[in-house]
């Protein structure tokens, strides 16, 4: 069966039942793409488990981040709800003024992440507050009727969750039959709550989970996309009935809360009693994710500077989506395990050491081929070199040791990085970046202490005042104490020593301050001569003045930090075997996540040689050879035209080029025949350009086409 048809655009294919079922698993595809067959299964398993870990970890982080927001929302619901339950004066007052309690949830521009937030929000509410939740999206609600339909449908379905299954049929039928109006909604609510109330003796559990007469929560996922009319109608209608059942609205807002007032006129927005909730900004969100996922030793796979830079750039310049960032990380995992046979060692240290033992000879050769390992071998004495290159057993021994080194390196790297960040993040103008990720990238890129930015930040650090310095040192101590690194005891000791020295300094200062009061001398009257003299003295003393004790100590602290940086923040690619745990093919990532189709098209049309490696197409400079594919020639010619292109001129120019390319072989006798062929080729090239959207037919002039793209000359 072919997919070419003049009458159909959709084709369904089903596996024929006759064929033997040899369904291949994902692991099979993983193996097929690989040249090394041996370890692929283990590699795939490692990859999957790592993916799962990352997934659960990120989800947990997100939950924690949202916790605060959700708590606030729940307490808001409780407040507005308790008023309803107790029929307090506030509620009666509110019913009189017909105000609906509304939570405006400002979520930021990263719309792609909102779905996740709303899902977990409705989960939280479902578990703790109320079964009656409706999630509405603008695309489902072009009119108030559709909105009510959707609302009733969702509410009645969640009622089924609570009720027993035998009622399902009844509910299903009623859902389609019930007229979708506010009255039917209220009737439904009354019957639903009454039923649960009457059943409470039997079902104590459900009622304890939810509140008494639970509120109906309606969530508008994307408030901005709703049409004004629908929203207005809904608010006005439901405000009429607010006394009869507890309705709470939640607006999901991507831009700013002002949008409520621009969407709804005052008469409508006054029917809402709005409380504002702000979710964590997506940038903070990302920082947390990076902090907890990438800047730890928890996950064996690490990202190289360029890869991280690509992911961060996609985030900052394209979508602000944390979800996409995580997806990008997941892709890195797949790519790394798929492309690198040695990634089998990319797991927790103990496991990796065990796996080293069972490495095959081929894999050992792979290790020997690693550039970082070759550098390592060259630095060894000659006997050791021979042993490493010939004997697998001594290689394995070395690999075990090197892996351990790498592990230790990471254990030290991250805490020291955080310490350095404590310092650099408080410097003015942030020479090494405000975020820890920037610092991380700088450290991964090359020796950070050789950069100008580092130099200037050290200089700035030498000018820090005491209180700042002390708090920073305290923070560093905290970081180092809480981290598992083994070598930190000594450092912590040293830092504490500094702190006590500062303490002492303070005491001596205070003593001296009491004894000397330089201000007093100024109180006396002076003449010009005396002033000049004192000023000169002052100047003199300033020049020759020795550093104070504080300054000396400050220098010492900064120098110590510098020494730590030089010792522990060596770029990862200086480390042997870094290829095993670092994913560094940024180009692959960028190609797959942030492709530039128009540029690809442009290159293919302008420089076909970059794809078709034929000598005939090789050309120098910007021009293309006249032997290029037809579409390239037609494209190149069309670039020379203005807004409109005369097809006749185009055809003639095209045939001039093409016949010249074919050379003298075309004899005069068959020229008519050739012309027809060239004509046909021209037609094909032009219609291809039309399909690609470079030109379109124009009615402005006969036999003209309009150019649609600009530039590319």
């Amino acid at each position, binding site marked *: 069966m072919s997919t070419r048809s003049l009458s159909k655009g959709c084709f369904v294919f089903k596996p024929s039942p006759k064929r033997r079922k040899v369904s291949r698993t994902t692991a099979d595809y993983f193996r097929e793409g690989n040249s090394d067959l041996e370890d692929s299964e283990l590699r795939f398993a490692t990859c999957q488990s790592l993916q799962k870990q990352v997934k659960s970890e990120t989800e947990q982080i997100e939950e924690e981040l949202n916790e605060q927001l959700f708590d606030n929302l729940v307490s808001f619901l409780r407040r507005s709800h308790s008023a309803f339950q107790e029929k307090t004066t506030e509620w009666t007052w509110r019913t009189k003024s017909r105000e609906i309690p509304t939570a405006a949830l400002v979520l930021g521009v990263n719309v792609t992440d909102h779905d996740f937030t709303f899902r977990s929000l409705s989960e939280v509410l479902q578990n703790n507050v109320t079964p009656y939740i409706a999630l509405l999206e603008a695309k489902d609600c072009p009119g108030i009727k559709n909105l009510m339909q959707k609302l009733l449908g969702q509410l009645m379905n969640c009622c089924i969750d609570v009720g027993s299954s035998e009622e399902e049929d009844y509910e299903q039928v009623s859902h389609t039959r019930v007229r979708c109006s506010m009255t039917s909604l209220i009737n439904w609510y009354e019957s639903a709550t009454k039923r649960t109330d009457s059943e409470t003796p039997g079902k104590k559990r459900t009622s304890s989970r939810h509140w008494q007469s639970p509120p109906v929560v309606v969530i508008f996922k994307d408030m901005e996309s709703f049409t004004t009319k629908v929203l207005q109608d809904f608010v006005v209608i439901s405000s009429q009935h607010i006394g009869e059942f507890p309705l709470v609205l939640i607006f999901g807002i991507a831009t700013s809360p002002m949008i409520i007032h621009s969407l709804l006129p005052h008469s409508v927005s006054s029917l809402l009693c709005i409380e504002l909730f702000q979710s964590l900004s997506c940038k903070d969100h990302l920082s947390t994710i990076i902090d907890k996922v990438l800047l730890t030793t928890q996950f064996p796979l690490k990202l190289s500077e360029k890869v991280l830079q690509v992911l961060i750039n996609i985030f900052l310049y394209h979508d602000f989506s944390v979800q996409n960032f995580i997806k990008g990380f997941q*892709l890195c995992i797949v790519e790394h395990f798929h492309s690198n046979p040695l990634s089998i060692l990319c797991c927790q240290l103990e496991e990796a050491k065990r796996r080293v033992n069972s490495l095959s000879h081929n894999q050992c050769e792979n290790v020997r081929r690693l550039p970082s390992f070759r550098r390592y071998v060259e630095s060894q004495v000659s006997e050791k070199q021979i042993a490493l290159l010939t004997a697998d057993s001594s290689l394995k021994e070395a690999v075990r040791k090197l892996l351990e080194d790498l592990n230790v390196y990471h254990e030290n790297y991250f805490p020291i990085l955080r310490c350095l960040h404590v310092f650099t993040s408080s410097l003015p*103008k942030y020479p090494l970046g405000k975020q820890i990720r920037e610092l991380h990238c700088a450290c991964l890129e090359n020796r950070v202490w050789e950069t100008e930015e580092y130099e200037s930040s050290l200089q700035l650090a030498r000018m820090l005042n005491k209180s700042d310095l002390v708090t920073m040192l305290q923070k560093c101590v905290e970081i180092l104490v809480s981290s598992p690194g083994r070598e930190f005891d000594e450092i912590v000791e040293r830092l504490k020593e500094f702190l006590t020295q500062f303490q002492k300094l303070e005491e001596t200062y205070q003593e001296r301050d009491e004894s000397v009061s330089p201000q007093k001398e100024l109180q006396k009257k002076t003449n010009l001569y005396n002033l000049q003299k004192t000023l000169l003295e002052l100047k003199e003393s300033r020049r020759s003045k020795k550093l104070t004790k504080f300054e000396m100590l400050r220098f010492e602290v900064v120098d110590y930090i510098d020494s730590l940086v030089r010792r522990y923040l060596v770029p990862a690619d200086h480390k042997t075997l870094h290829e095993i745990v670092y994913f560094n093919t940024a180009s692959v990532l960028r190609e797959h996540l942030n492709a530039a189709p128009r540029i690809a098209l442009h290159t293919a049309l302008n420089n076909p040689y970059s794809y078709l490696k034929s000598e005939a197409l090789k050309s120098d400079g910007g021009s293309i050879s006249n032997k290029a594919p037809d579409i390239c020639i037609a494209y190149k010619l069309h670039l020379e035209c203005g807004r409109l292109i005369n097809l006749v001129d185009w055809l003639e120019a095209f045939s001039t080029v093409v016949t010249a390319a074919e050379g003298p072989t075309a004899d005069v006798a068959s020229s008519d025949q050739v012309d027809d062929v060239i004509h046909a080729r021209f037609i094909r090239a032009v219609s291809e350009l039309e399909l690609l959207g470079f030109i379109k037919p124009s009615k402005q002039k006969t036999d003209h086409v309009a150019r649609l793209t600009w530039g590319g000359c």
Partner: protein
Amino acid sequence: MSLAECRSAGALEVKFVPDEDVLRHIADDAGVKVQKGKSQLIVNTKRFVKKLEAISDDEAQEILEEKNYVAVLGLCGEESMTNGSSVGGGEVYTFQTPKRSNKMAELASELAQTPGQSVVPDPSECPEKTARTPQSSKRSSSNQVQQKTKKNEFVSTTPYRLRRRLAAPDAQLESESEYSASCSEEEEVEEAQKEVSTVLSHQKTPAKTKAVSTPPSRKTLTKKKDNMNNLVEEYFEAHSSSKVLTSDRTLQKLRRKRLNQQTLHDLLQKSPLAYAAEIKELNQQYESLFSKWMLQLHLGFNIVLYGLGSKHDLLEKFRTSMLQDSVHLVVNGYFPSITVKSVLNSITEEVLDHIGTFRSPLDQLEFIMKRFKEVWDQAKQSLYNWLWYETTTFSPYVEETSYENSLLVQQSGSLALSSLTHVLHSLTPNARGIFRLLAQYQLENKDNASYPGLSFQDFYQQCREAFLVNSDLTLRAQLTEFRDHKLIRTKRGADGVEYLLIPVDDSTLTDFLEKEDEDV
């Protein structure tokens, strides 16, 4: 002491304190408050300057960051096989520079003359080939223009742009009329503009007569290309007028007749595909990625292929080699009448064997999602997890373009004729006569470019004279039938009179009448 003060306030707040201020401070004079305020002012300005510096520093930083961004994004995978991404955006997204009308021909001859790497074209062949380019005709026309300009030379001194603006409304009107053809009026406008521009260029650069059609004002503009404002101006200038600087030649004047779909297909079949070996190699490279695609599809990613060339064959190969064991759906996006509904229908009806209809696509979608619960949830969660793969194949878009109503292919020609005769044969002889009258009249006027069509009153008169109708009501009824079959079009003229036209090109109409005559 000021030192100590500074330190306690944080070392960074370095104030500039002028000497005299120190003096005042130390002298502790009571009556200097005004003076002090003044000095404070000085300090303030100093700070302001500092701030400015800081701001410019920030900007520099930003620029640097941007550069980094470009560098990272531009970091091309030299190791990867595609280097299509190596081109920066600036190269692709520039504004167009105005071109001379015969530039294309020039480039063509230039390309034709550039010696190929392997074959050097016969020098005797070259002049002949270049003579075929429209340049020669262009040259003569430009000579004519030049003669005209000599007449005009002393007449016009108004700036070119102003006059162009004056001429613009006419042109605008012209462009608004839906049916264009090279109307004589438009040509006149164009001609006039050409003259004007020639005048100016002639005055400015008497030696350069070749650049006749390039308005000098634009030329100066292009020089300052860096200036964004000028680019914008240039863009709108290129789009503001309906002035067309192309030659007026039409395909009809060419001796070559239009090809129909079948002959086109046959002709292309005959000519071998260029670089077949290289294209095959490219395809093989992509085919080696199949299992990786499958892996990624299984892991919840989706795949987009992009790049020049038809991907139909590649996808077909992927489908037949990898997807035989799974249910899959092929949707041809280039299919002209593809809709969401047809896609969803084929899922519900053919995949899920569901019989019945849905109220709206959304309901249908919900139904599908329910059925695919466990499959869909993951996909829904990752929305569209696109992975982009570049697969530039250079394969011709045979299938894709076959639906396009191509500009050059006479797609409707034979079809229109046969359907015309078919429809008319089912009509009464009287109706056929009426149509014949209209067709004949239209052919008589085929050389009149501003022929609006036959007015209803005139047509009625003619029909009466030929004893084809007896009242204008019968004629109207007949015309309605024609209109329903799309045989005629009616257009209301400026005077409110109804004009009738047959929307078929003249050659087809002639063929039709000839055939009719044969039959009779």
